[in-house]
């Protein structure tokens, strides 16, 4: 716009700026200042997004290649796991005997009674802590592959000679249903002491059995 076409009220401002803008020092400073401002704005709004996109895509390529390799490894691992699972399929039911999905308190009591009979020991008392008969539906909070084990305390009192009790203990350790022995205490047997039962010992056991609960 021609300076003479400026309205009268603006013309005085232009006239006051004219001597300042005409100075060589101001011209140099203005050039440098506007250069940096232009480069800064151009860098922020044009160069930065472009380089950012380039770097993002490069990073994405690297990540996708890594994911591809890891997925390939995982597929191989899954195939291997499937083969192992097929091999051990017949043995898998043993796990459900060792740690059943419900307490099966009667079954363990029966097994302990049978073991006592087998080892010719006299089972005088067995006490199993209260356990739920029905297991609640699996919790949605836990994923299906997370198995939680619940304990079931058992107290056992058994009489017999040293050899009989040793046989009972060996049998207990060889039992398929997993039980851990928390404490053992021996005392002289007092029940029905006869001439043949002088060497009898009373064995008090505190056991813990386990069952699955999700």
């Amino acid at each position, binding site marked *: 716009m021609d300076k003479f076409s400026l309205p009268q009220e603006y013309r005085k401002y232009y006239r006051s700026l004219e001597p300042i803008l005409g100075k060589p020092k101001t011209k140099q*400073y203005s050039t440098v200042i506007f250069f940096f401002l232009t480069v800064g704005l151009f860098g922020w709004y044009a160069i930065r997004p472009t380089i950012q996109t380039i770097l993002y895509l490069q990073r994405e390529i690297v990540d996708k290649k890594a994911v591809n390799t890891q997925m390939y490894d995982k597929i191989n691992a899954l195939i291997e796991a499937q083969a192992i*699972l097929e091999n051990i399929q017949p043995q898998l039911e043993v796990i459900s005997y060792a740690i059943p999905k419900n307490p099966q308190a009667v079954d363990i009591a029966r097994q302990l009674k049978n073991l006592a009979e087998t080892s010719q020991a006299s089972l005088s008392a067995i006490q199993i802590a209260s356990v739920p008969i029905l297991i609640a539906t699996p919790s949605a909070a836990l994923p299906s592959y997370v198995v939680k084990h619940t304990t079931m305390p058992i107290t056992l009192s058994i009489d017999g000679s040293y050899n009989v009790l040793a046989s009972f203990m060996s049998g207990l350790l060889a039992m398929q249903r997993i039980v851990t022995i928390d404490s053992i205490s021996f005392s002289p047997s007092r029940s029905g002491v006869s001439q043949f039962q002088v060497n009898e010992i009373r064995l008090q056991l505190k056991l813990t059995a386990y069952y699955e609960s999700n």
Partner: protein
Amino acid sequence: MKQESDRDLYLITIFTFITVLLWIYFELVRTTKTSTNTAVVNQLITPLTPKLDTDTLDILTTKKRY
């Protein structure tokens, strides 16, 4: 007075320019360092070890049911 004002403006511009450059640099570094994988993909690529303790299973098989 005017010359000082010009120099101040010049310094402000220089510092602004440096700030913008640093900002761009750190943005680009962040873009390079940040993984593009989603949480689902990260969960999918979790390594799986196809090893099973078959010795324990064999021991369990040899145990008895009374």
